[in-house]
């Protein structure tokens, strides 16, 4: 499939049972009919399942470091579980040590 905006190839990914197409060029995302609704449904399920807010920590949590406007989403957020998820990958290992 070709991206309607920049005409580069689009690749299909499956995220939690929802098929999305992402453009390898402009990184835009294409959703099929019904997929937006599927995403909305998944989101509301997730919100319902979310545990009650945790008790305030005994020590003040360290403030998340500031990030630029173009930084990765969720930066410094409370759901930053994926943040740094690439840290242990070989690709990043190479990047850390090369020009």
């Amino acid at each position, binding site marked *: 499939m070709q991206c309607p905006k*920049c005409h580069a190839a689009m690749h299909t990914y499956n995220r939690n049972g929802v098929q999305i197409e992402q453009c390898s060029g402009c990184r835009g995302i294409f959703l099929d009919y019904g997929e937006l609704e599927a995403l909305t449904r998944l989101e509301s399920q997730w919100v319902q399942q979310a545990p009650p807010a945790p008790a305030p920590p005994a020590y003040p949590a360290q403030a*998340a470091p500031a990030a630029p406007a*173009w*930084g990765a989403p*969720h930066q410094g957020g409370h759901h930053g579980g994926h*943040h*740094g998820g690439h840290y242990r990958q070989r*690709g990043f290992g190479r990047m850390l*040590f090369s020009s």
Partner: protein
Amino acid sequence: MLADRDDGTVVRHGALVAKAHAPGTDPEEHRARLALAAHRDVDGVFLPPLPLPGSGSDALDGRPVTLWPYGPPVDPEDPDDAPWEEAARLLALLHRTPPPPGGAGRLPDMRAPAKAALAVDRMRRTAPDHPATGTVLDAWRTVPEAPAPYRLLCHGDFHLGQLVRATRPPAGPEAGAPVDAPTAWRLIDIDDLGLGDPAWDLARPAAWFAAGILPPEIWSRFLGAYQEAGGPAVEADPWGRLDVPARALTVQTAALALAKSTVERRPLDEVEEVMIDTCARIAGHRTG
């Protein structure tokens, strides 16, 4: 052989490391950079070069050659153990050192902004048809052409591969110290050092953090140690000074990923994809 790349060939023989610098290295600029690394004002920051034996030429096929003591590098398998704080303190110390008089006039610009531009040129040459090239170029257009007007000592190409442990000089038989015991961390690689805006030396870790691949704790440790050591590259709001260089380093990393993966006929790995995604966000925030 430790490395053989476009930018130099490095060979080790026991306790010695010899580097043949890149063809086309400007001999005058090279001598000024080497003199700085040997200067006592940056003793404790840079690994000092060793004198070349004999009185022969210091060039091989027109390429300058330098000689260094071997020092163990950071273990690439264990980035958690990397000396992030020590690296930050060394950079702060370098940035705070006034350019030595006399040599300062001859010391060239540090090459970090030029290297970003070269990476984009290389991508344009080798990966003009890659679908993500346009995205990287869009991000590159947000980076101002003129670098900020600072004239401080900078490394010019800082990453974790630019740190080694200095070893004590071999002790005489009467000295009880173990021979070649590693001591403190030092910076290596003089090819890009010079005068400029020190924020570029923090830009790689800043870009990795902004892309979401360097954990915030590690970025905080690195930046905190730099600020604590009185480093002049950032002010109270660190991103005021880091924003442009971090964007440039994101573009540089993405451009080299496209150039290399195209030549090697391989797909981008997941981390390289993240850098392209970050370029797309930079391009999207161009007015912001």
